[in-house]
Structures are given as C-alpha cells and as structure tokens.
C-alpha cells in the first residue's frame, strides 16, 4: 500500500530496510511481540517445555510401554514393598500400588492432564470473553448485571468454586473441565471488560463512530481486537493454574473413574499412604505437574513482557 506513495524526501523507505530487523514504525503489535518472544530465552525455555509435554501427550499410545489402566506388574507388589526404578526388568521407573507401570502412567497422565487444562481454559476463555464483550460493549444495565455476577463468583475462592461445581456435576473428567472452566470465567470477563473500557475513548473508536459504523461492528472488529492482549496473556498463565487445579481436584477425589486411571493428581492421592516406602510415586507426578505449570508460566510471562508497550519502546 505504501508503494503508491512517493518515497519521503529523506529516503526513509521501509522497503529498503533489512527485513529481519524489527521495524519500529510499521510492524503490528503481534508481529513485534512474536519477534521479541523468539529472542527471549525465558520464552524459548517455556515453549520447549510446553512442546515436549504436548508431544508426549499426543504420542502417548506410541511412547508408553503399557496402557493407561493396565496393571502388568501386579505379581511384583506386596503390601510392604513396591518395586522402585530399575528393580524389576521391563519397568524403568518401577511400579505403583496397583501394579501399573509408573512410566506409562506418567505418559498417559500427561495426556489427560493437558487435555483437561487446555479444554477448561478454552471454556473459561470463551465464557469470560462472551461476558466481557457484553459488559464492555453494551455498558449500562447489561454491564451492571454481569459485573455483579462476576463479583459474586469472585467472592468465593477459586478452587472452592471449582470444587462446588464439580460436586454438583457429579465426578469425572468432564465435570473437572467444566468446573475449572467456569471458575475462570469471572477473571477473563473482568479483564476483558476493563481492557475494553480503557480503549473506549481512543481516537480510532471515535473515527469509527464518525464513519457511522454500527455499535456491533465497532465492538467486534475495532474494540475487541485491540483489547484482547491482556486476556491472551492471562489465558497462557491460566493454563498453568488449570493444570494445577485439575490435579488438585482429582487429588481431592473428584476425578471419578477407577483408582488406577492415569492422571497426575490422582496418582498423588494414592501415593499418600506409600510416602514412607515409595516416595517416587508422589515425586514424579508432582514434578510433572510443576514442570508443565512452569512451562506455561514462562511462556505467559514473556508474552506479557513482549506485549507491554512500556518494554516495546526500548
């Protein structure tokens, strides 16, 4: 589009610049953010962790030696002894209380834990954005009603809210997904609303209004894309909390299904009584949860930094 214009007298033609360099004037916010992310070691580390776990989750059927609920080593366990790493050939990380292969369970656990984390955050994001757009776009009584509802939900601690919803839905993986998703809605709604309100007085909105665009068009194609940044950052960070909360809910026993189902939080529940004789049963799934959460947190925080206008100008 700039080709139709003659080059400025100073010869400051953007086309002549090295394309690999960030163009401080002409790049979009997201392009610029991506460029910064690629150079941030923190972001790279986060991305590698997340990719690794996603890969393991996706390739679980290929990678895991046994199925998620299989109990191949049932004959090797006694009430007082659970074979640890390398004790029984064929079970690299040893066995668990039920006779399942710990390695296989960790791999299948990656699948179910990440699935719950991602689906619940997607649900929370969708619900939160819907409420946020309604509140921020319409204002007035719609805004009032939605924000009062958000206040009510925020007056109950997050995990407690999720637990109550899961209890009402009946136990199971779907109940956990919905429960965690709903408990995230108020945060996303409030964030998007305040972000939209801060943009409402901007010049480009005034320009769109002057052009006579409808309220819906302005909200959806001008206000929303410009306000969504903080929400995306929050969503990335929330993935970490979602994985932890999902583990917490199944640790508390709301996961349903059979005791030997491969899920990190549930593995910790049953490791409780074995802490004295087989601490690896608690440590390895716990470490998996912590590292996954670390990956999402690193990614989310570098994204926040990359999108922050204060650090962009540097």
């Amino acid at each position, binding site marked *: 589009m700039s080709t139709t214009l003659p080059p400025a007298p100073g010869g400051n033609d953007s086309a002549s610049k090295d394309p690999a360099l960030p163009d401080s004037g002409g790049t979009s916010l997201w392009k610029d953010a991506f460029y910064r992310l690629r150079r941030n070691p923190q972001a790279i580390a986060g991305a590698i962790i997340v990719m690794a776990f996603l890969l393991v989750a996706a390739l679980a059927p290929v990678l895991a030696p046994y199925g998620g609920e299989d109990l191949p080593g049932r004959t090797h366990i006694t009430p007082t002894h659970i074979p640890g790493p390398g004790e029984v050939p064929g079970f690299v990380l040893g066995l668990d209380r039920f006779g399942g292969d710990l390695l296989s369970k960790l791999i299948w656990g990656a699948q179910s834990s990440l699935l719950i984390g991602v689906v619940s955050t997607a649900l929370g994001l969708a619900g939160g954005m819907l409420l946020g757009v309604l509140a921020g776009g319409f204002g007035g009584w719609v805004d009032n009603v939605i924000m009062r509802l958000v206040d009510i939900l925020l007056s109950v*601690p997050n995990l407690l809210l999720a637990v109550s919803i899961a209890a009402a839905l009946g136990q199971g993986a779907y109940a956990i997904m919905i429960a965690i998703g709903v408990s995230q809605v108020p945060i996303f709604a409030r964030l998007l609303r305040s972000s939209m309100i801060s943009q409402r007085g901007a010049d480009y909105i005034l320009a769109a209004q002057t052009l006579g665009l409808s309220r819906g068009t302005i909200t959806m194609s001008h206000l929303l894309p410009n306000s969504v940044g903080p929400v995306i950052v929050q969503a990335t960070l929330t993935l970490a909390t979602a994985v932890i909360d999902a583990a917490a809910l199944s640790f*508390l026993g709301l996961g349903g299904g059979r005791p030997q189902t491969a899920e990190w939080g549930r593995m910790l529940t049953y490791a409780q009584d074995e*802490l004295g004789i087989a601490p690896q049963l608690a440590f390895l799934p716990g470490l998996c949860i912590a590292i996954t*959460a670390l990956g999402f947190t690193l990614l989310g925080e570098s994204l926040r930094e990359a999108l922050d206008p204060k650090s962009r100008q540097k």
Partner: protein
Amino acid sequence: MLRVIGKRLALLVPTLLGLSILLFLWVRSLPGGPATALLGDRATPEAVERINELYGFNRPLIEQYFIYMGKLLQGDFGTSLLTGRPVLEEFATRFPATLELTIVALIFAIGIGIPLGYLAAKHYGRWPDHGSVVLSLIGITIPVFFLAFILKWLFAIKIPIFPTDGRQNARINATHVTDFYVLDGLLTREWDASWDAFMHLILPGIALGTIPLAIIVRITRASVLEVQNADYVRTAKAKGLLERTIRNRFILRNAMLPVTTTIGLQLGLLISGAVLTETVFAFSGIGRFLRDAIFNLDYPVLQGFIIFIAILYSLINLIVDISYSIIDPRVRVQ
C-alpha cells in the same frame, strides 16, 4: 471515613444475597436433588417422598428460598449431615485451627517475602535478584499439595524433626480453652502442649505460605524498584540520611501499598490451599472438613462454609482498603 466503610458494607449485601441464591440453586442441582444427597443413592422412593415432605423440598422454589433465607438471617445454617451438629458450631470449632495455620503461613510469607523482594530490588540484575526471581517462579508453579508431600517426606519421615500429621500429639493431655491450641497452652501454662501444637503448624504453614511468599517477593521487588529511584529517595540520600532511615521511612513505606493489597488478595488462595494442605497433613481445620463435606455431599456444611468464607473474604478486603489510609496518608485526602 465511617461513611466509606458504611458504603462498602452496604455493597456487600447484594453480593451476599446473590451468593445465597446461587448456593440455594446449587443444592437443588445436586445429582438426584437434596433428598438423595441426604439419603444416599439407594433410598426408596417412599423415603425420598418423606424427606421432601419433611424439609419442604416439594414446595415451590421461591417459597423454599424464602424459608431458607429466613433461617439464614436467624443464624440457622442447618445441621451437618455427617456429624449432626449445627453448621455454625462446626465452623466455630474448626476455624481457630485454620486461622492458626494461616497466621503461621502469613508470617512465613511476609517475614521472608518482603526482605527477599527488597534485597532483589536493591541488587537489581545481580545474583540476589536472579535468585529470588527463580525462587518465586518455583513457588508459583509448584502445586501446594505436592510441596506438602515433599516437606512431609523430608522433614517428618526421612529426618523426623516435625510431626507428620494432626494438630497436637494425642498423648499430651491438653486443656482447651479457646481452640487455638498454641494459645491454650500459653494460657494454661502447659508449655509442652503449646510447643507441640506449634511444631505441628510448621510444615503445613510453610506449604501453605509458599505461593503467597512467591507473590509477595515479586510485588515487593517490582514496587521497590519503582520507588527507589524516586526524587524523594534521591533527596534523602543527598541529605546524607542513614541507610536504615532511607530504607524504612522512604522506600519501604512507599512501596508497601501494592504489597498490602496483594497480601489481602492472598486470602482466597490461602483458603483454597488450606483444603489441600490440611488434607495432606490430616490437620482438622475448616479445609479438611470442607473436603469431607465435598465427598459426602454434606451440602448444608458446604453452603454455610462458603457463605462464611465469602463474608470473611469481603471483610478482609475492606480492612485492606482501610489500612491504605493508615500506611499512606495521601489516600485519605482524595
């Protein structure tokens, strides 16, 4: 000032009213309805009918809500399905335990978090800074119940310094006056009982306090970084004031405002964390009772406890807002 407090308290009313409606509807949406929750899955239709008649579950929803609300306002939160005791009483006897635990957790979090955050900001870009940033990152991403496991395994099983679970050794014949076990021991001069209760608080307190610690470190660091280059700090340095005076009166006092808010906001996290920590350490506070209530669908307990917690949460936030004006007189003027 009083008018501001009154206005805030008045705003609490619609929130709590809305919460009570949601909780009321929540009970009605429990699998199989409240009668099944009361009687279990294998209840006969006649028994369900009888319970519905007795508790009025078959009346119109609106009418049921008003009956429920009327009882709430009279302080009748129902009785626990598990223990048969009034919900209010259950809360009152267990709350001191959780409060004790929360206080230890907060002392741990604030006592280490603020100095660490200050040090990080003072040595910005050097190893104390990097160290505390990494530490706080680990603190945020480690699940509370996993940390509780690690602490329990390391300091109660491998190296048995601390007790593994409970609030007090059952062999100690302690007199309980206030249900705050540490305080009870001090009041009755049963020093060993007090000490034992205190030792029982250490590991769960650390587990519970780690997330708030990590958050306090970050906020303090960011806040001190912003304040320490302010003009008034430079002026104070130029005047040749003592380092201690500059730190306490100029930097920390001004940097504390965001930190106070953060500490207030941690309460929700602390209660969520208490459910998990108390479960791991078999610590009989409200967290563990809530967990048992979830399992047995003891809905009067869940309903009541959630309302109490919401009231508490809102009140604490109010206190935090009021404390601003004590920490920072500039807020009062506005």
